[in-house]
């Protein structure tokens, strides 16, 4: 009975989805070729790794169809209604002689309501289009586009929004008859940028992911306990049938959802009507941990989490997240939940497209971190990107998100009733949580379902999106049916994420694939996560074994492996460091081998014995001869500090809504564009995660220090001086440091309920001045901002300092800038002439290096960048690496005499700062903090190779699936600051956050609810006593007087009843 409407809506969905194809150029059966060939070329030629040879095979161009416009509506309307709306909107324009008609669409879907109309308008003026757009039911007007097959190879776009190309598997039937693997129309992972019309699909996400197949088999999530940690849920919401319990953990006395966030999330998981969720029969446990003002505290979460453990919750959805992964009480608690077999699903964050923006708890190893895609399989712009930044500066980040799923314009339950659509990773998270719930209910032996096995099944079954790297898509797009197949043939085992290391595979293995390795370089670290489905604890037996493949030059690399001492909870890390052996110093080619890891867990059914599982981690690297010194750039990561744990303010003070510097300041996070640029210019960029004493300066042309917040060991300062005398060059991109401004930008943190005072400025200028003082250089405590032109390039100086002191024979460029310090402190505007911002200097010693200082890092940082200055970086590297003085700078009009710095005091460290708490260099001391003893440089113990005479397949990915799971054999019957992760919708997108007005404050309701019984009881007592009096009166008084006294009695009773009838709580 239930299935019929499902089928009808499914059919309808298909038809509407199919509709854009009608009346277009035939697309042809273009098949996407996913078998990529290896690119033997060094990646130097490709300017953007996202633009690989993979994406160049099929290309289309599109052209605007003249006079034809697509009018998108705010909802689904019948053909008649749509025609009416358009004619009413164009009425005035028609008076001016505008001709228009609706282009008929003759297809079966035309009988059904649609949210768009194709209109032919002759000589449409922009004003007439605007009147159209002003109509209340019209969302947008766009030009009709026509798609053409390729004419010429389109150049790769070096843009943030990467071009996505579609594969169109039209050879397959558009119906869901039987389910063989990969036949799902919706799972075609290719796409085309022009095909925006697919937006008209009714987005019932559960059906798109083929949940109906599992429903038909009788699996609806029954018996699985799902917890939704969110803004609550109203009591009598029509979409839910099995709300087991609602609890409130906030300081607001209500259980109801005043925002709609929690209702939406619960709906995606378990709604049973209208916009269907995945698991309507699952037991819903609603935890209200957010107030209507979106406030929440760690302590509320801790108590609520304890309750979830007690209630033996199976699946827990957290559509929340924040940058603070150093919130130990919270992080420990999430581990504790996982250890108690609670499958944690969390939203990865809405801070994309910037890299290094992962949110906690989704970035934890044990949690399923979910990213968002749109219905055309593009990674949603808002979805946060990897890598994790916990491991910096010593190690390297893990791959996150784990999987991606629909998170853009997904339909879910409205706050009181009906449906609406929302976007955000908090939408994608319940999609996975719902899918996980449904999947858990399909497994007969529930013992097999645990946080690790579920994650393993999701990861192994996910469909990889072409042309997207692993820090954006994780393992790919959720595939419910394949996950079902894997889970139902699952045997407890260990697996790895990523399951192989192919440093040549582009773009998936970005950034590894963007730079080949060579002898003498910093070891490449891959941080692999071990998932252990055998038990909550596990260990790695003996040492991991490194087996190089002799026929494939495996002996040309050295591998070192380190791992978690105990795999807990259900997971651990395996850090693989790869280095080139000395004998391959001038060799070029591909080297392969594998690492074998054996994981053991105590067996639950057999005392004293252990379950073991052996996993193979194939490794494939590209080796090039060691590049010359001048081409090698070393990025100093060791001296970059960030939030968490301390308050390190943003480098751009205009960005008030994002006050913290939290993206890691790594070349693969917020300096990604700079890295890509340097790669495209032919430089090899390496990362130094250790003190400056730990690198061989004779190998590198330039040391790049950008936005450093850390202090320096005295040994580092001496070593750097010596290195520069010996030919190493140094480029410093500094930032602001002004103690008055630092005091001004303190803020009260709602989450930790305390005042936050910055521990440095944008950069630690006093520390930098200690480092460069020997050359007679220093930065000032000035704070400047403004636009200027340098060598015909438009530049923007965003909250930077100036150069206070510079050697006489250096080149110094000065510009006219605004004094932002004055603006911040006194709200006055003052323009300062001749602010020295850039300095170039050749050290006098024979063969000595060059030093460049620039006062602002914002123009090479991806976060909040307005105008890039990669051209300047190029020019500076030309100077430092090749001693070529850019004439545009040396002969600039802006060149001034070097400042002597006598007129102004140099910045001093802010008194009472707590930098020592977060510093690797300082430690607390009586009086001023003092430097610690210099730590030993990291030492890797290389694994002893055990060569084997094997050859690896050319494509490592396809061969790395879970053991003992043969998908083809599993028969299928025919038959989803902590804050809610909803991003503000951009204009033109439906379903904005409708924060309702006039909601009854929960507190009021609660109080009335509690006082009602008291009033009712008192009322009843009055009636009772009246009767007693009455009875005694009956015996003494005459009957006639009774009616007069009786009337009030009657009224009294009526009142009692009405008060009693108001049990609204």
């Amino acid at each position, binding site marked *: 009975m239930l299935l019929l409407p499902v089928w009808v809506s499914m059919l309808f969905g298909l038809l509407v989805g199919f509709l854009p194809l009608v009346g277009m150029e035939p697309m042809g059966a273009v098949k996407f070729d996913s078998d990529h060939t290896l690119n033997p070329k060094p990646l130097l030629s490709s300017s953007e790794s996202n633009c690989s040879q993979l994406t160049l095979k099929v290309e289309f161009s599109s052209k605007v169809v003249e006079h034809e416009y697509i009018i998108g509506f705010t909802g689904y309307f019948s053909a008649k209604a749509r025609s009416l709306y358009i004619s009413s909107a164009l009425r005035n324009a028609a008076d001016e002689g505008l001709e228009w008609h609706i282009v008929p669409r003759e297809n079966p879907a035309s009988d059904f309501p649609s949210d768009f109309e194709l209109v032919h308008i002759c000589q449409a003026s922009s004003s007439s289009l605007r009147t159209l757009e002003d109509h209340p039911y019209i969302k947008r007007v766009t030009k009709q586009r026509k798609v053409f097959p390729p004419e010429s190879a389109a150049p790769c776009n070096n843009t943030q929004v990467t071009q996505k190309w579609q594969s169109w598997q039209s050879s397959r039937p558009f119906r869901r008859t039987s389910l063989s693997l990969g036949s799902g129309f919706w799972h075609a992972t290719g796409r085309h940028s022009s095909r925006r019309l697919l937006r008209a699909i009714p987005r019932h996400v559960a059906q798109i992911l083929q949940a109906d197949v599992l429903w038909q088999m009788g699996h609806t999530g029954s018996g699985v306990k799902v917890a939704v940690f969110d803004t609550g849920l109203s*009591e009598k919401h029509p979409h839910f049938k099995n709300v087991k*319990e*609602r*609890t*409130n*953990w*906030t300081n607001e*006395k*209500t*259980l109801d959802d005043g925002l709609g966030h929690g209702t939406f999330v619960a709906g995606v998981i378990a709604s049973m009507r209208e916009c269907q969720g995945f698991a309507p029969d699952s037991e819903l446990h609603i935890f209200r941990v957010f107030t209507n003002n979106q406030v929440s505290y*760690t*302590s*509320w979460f*801790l*108590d609520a989490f*304890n*309750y979830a*453990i*007690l*209630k033996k919750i199976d699946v827990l959805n957290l559509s929340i997240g924040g940058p*603070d992964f150093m*919130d*130990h*009480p919270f992080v420990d608690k999430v581990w*504790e939940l996982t*250890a*108690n*077999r609670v499958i944690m699903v969390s939203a990865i964050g809405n801070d994309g497209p910037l890299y290094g923006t992962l949110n906690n708890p989704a970035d934890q190893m044990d949690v399923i971190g979910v990213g968002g895609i749109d219905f055309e399989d593009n990674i949603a712009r808002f979805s946060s990107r990897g890598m994790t930044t916990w491991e910096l500066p010593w190690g390297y980040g893990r791959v996150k998100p784990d999987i991606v799923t629909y998170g853009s314009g997904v339909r879910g339950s409205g706050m009181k009733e009906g449906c609406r659509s929302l976007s955000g990773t908090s939408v994608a998270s319940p999609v996975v949580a719902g899918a996980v719930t449904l999947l858990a209910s399909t497994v007969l032996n529930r013992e097999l379902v645990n946080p690790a096995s579920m994650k393993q099944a999701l990861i192994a079954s996910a469909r990889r999106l072409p042309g997207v790297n692993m820090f954006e898509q994780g393992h790919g797009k959720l595939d419910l049916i394949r996950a079902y197949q894997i889970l139902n043939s699952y045997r407890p085992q260990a697996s790895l994420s990523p399951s192989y290391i192919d440093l040549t595979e582009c773009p998936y293995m970005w950034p590894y694939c963007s730079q080949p390795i060579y002898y003498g370089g910093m070891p490449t670290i891959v941080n692999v996560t071990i998932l252990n489905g055998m038990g*909550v*604890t596990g260990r790695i037996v003996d040492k991991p074994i490194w087996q190089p493949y002799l026929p494939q030059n495996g002996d040309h690399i050295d591998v070192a492996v380190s791992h978690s001492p*105990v795999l*807990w909870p259900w997971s651990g890390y395996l850090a693989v460091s790869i280095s080139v052996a000395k004998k391959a110093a001038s060799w070029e080619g591909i080297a392969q081998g594998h690492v074998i890891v054996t994981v053991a867990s*105590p067996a*639950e059914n*057999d*005392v*004293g014995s252990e379950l073991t599982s052996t996993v193979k981690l194939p490794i494939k690297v590209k080796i090039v001869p060691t590049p010359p010194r001048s081409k090698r750039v070393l990025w100093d990561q060791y001296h970059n500090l960030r939030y968490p744990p301390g308050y390190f303010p943003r480098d751009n003070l205009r960005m008030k809504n994002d006050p913290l510097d939290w993206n890691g300041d790594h070349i693969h996070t917020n300096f990604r564009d700079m890295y890509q640029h340097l790669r495209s210019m032919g430089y090899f960029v390496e990362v130094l995660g250790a003190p400056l004493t730990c690198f061989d300066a004779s190998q590198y042309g330039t040391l790049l220090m950008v936005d450093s917040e850390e202090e320096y060991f005295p040994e580092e300062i001496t070593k750097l001086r010596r290195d520069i005398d010996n030919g190493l060059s140094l480029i410093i991109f500094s930032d602001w440091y002004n103690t008055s401004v630092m005091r001004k930008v303190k803020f009260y943190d709602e*989450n*930790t*309920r305390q005042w936050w005072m910055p521990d440095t400025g944008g950069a630690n200028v006093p520390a930098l001045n200690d480092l460069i003082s020997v050359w007679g250089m220093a930065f000032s405590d000035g704070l400047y901002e403004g636009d200027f032109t340098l060598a015909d390039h438009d530049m923007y100086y965003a909250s930077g300092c100036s150069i206070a002191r510079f050697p006489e024979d250096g080149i110094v460029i000065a510009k006219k800038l605004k004094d932002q310090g004055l603006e911040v402190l006194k709200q006055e505007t003052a323009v300062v002439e001749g602010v020295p911002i850039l300095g170039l200097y050749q050290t006098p010693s024979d063969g000595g290096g060059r030093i460049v200082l620039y006062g602002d890092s914002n123009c090479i940082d991806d976060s909040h960048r307005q105008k890039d200055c990669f051209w300047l970086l190029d020019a500076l590297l030309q100077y430092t690496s090749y001693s070529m003085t850019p004439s545009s700078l040396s002969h600039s009009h802006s060149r001034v005499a070097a400042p002597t710095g006598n007129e102004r005091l140099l910045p001093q460290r802010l008194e009472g700062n707590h930098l020592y*708490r977060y510093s690797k260099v300082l430690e607390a001391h009586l009086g001023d903090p003092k430097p610690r003893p210099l730590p030993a440089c990291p030492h890797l113990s290389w694994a002893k190779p055990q060569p084997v005479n094997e050859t690896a397949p050319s494509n490592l990915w396809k061969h790395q699936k879970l053991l003992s799971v043969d998908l083809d054999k599993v028969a299928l019957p025919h038959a989803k600051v902590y804050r809610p992760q909803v991003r503000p919708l951009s204009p033109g997108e439906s379903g904005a956050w409708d924060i309702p007005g006039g909601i009854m404050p929960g507190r009021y309701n*609660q109080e009335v609810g*509690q006082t*009602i*019984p008291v009033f*009712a*009881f008192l009322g*009843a007592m009055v*009636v009772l006593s009246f009767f007693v009096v009455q009875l005694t009166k009956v015996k003494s008084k005459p009957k006639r007087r*009774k*009616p007069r006294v*009786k009337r009030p009695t*009657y009224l009294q*009773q009526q009142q*009692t*009843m009405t008060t*009693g*009838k108001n*049990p609204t*709580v």
Partner: protein
Amino acid sequence: MMVLRRLLRKRWVLGVVFGLSLIYFLTSTLKQEERSTRDRTLLEVKDTDHRIPWKVRFNLGNSSRQMTQCRNSIQGKTLLTDELGYVCERKNLLVNGCCNVNAPSSRQYICKSCLANGCCSIYEYCVSCCLQPDKQRLLERFLNRAAEGFQNLFTAVEDHFELCLAKCRTSSQSVQHENTYRNPQAKYCYGESPPELLPV
């Protein structure tokens, strides 16, 4: 009107009206009680005389009794505590979930790593210590007085073992400034007082 007046004069009519309203009153109040068991608000109005309906049952018999099936603390990295209060290593856990009492490392009611204020550095020892029969009075006192803000959790707890599992976990009482432990060394407490605040 006269008919109505007459009718109202009849005592039985009034009795019926009264009876009906009494029934309505009782059902509505009962209904509310029922709902309050399902929808719990953390911060209910707290009056000092209000006794919380604890369900906790303490096992008064001797705990050396034989169990066929044990619950245990599930989560531990290396250690586990079973409901009889034994702490053992994972490898000494029997198939029925109980600790192997004969294993040399298994110990019952052990308060290792626990401080005088009832806070321990290892969760499993906290649970074991809390299961000691002589801790019963302390727990009862906690349930009746100190459990403010924990009613959701501790009204759902059914017996001594569940109480100890829940009590020893880190909670809102364990933190200062929300994101740091009051005492990162001894954060698992079975006692009434929160961990002692360590100076930064």
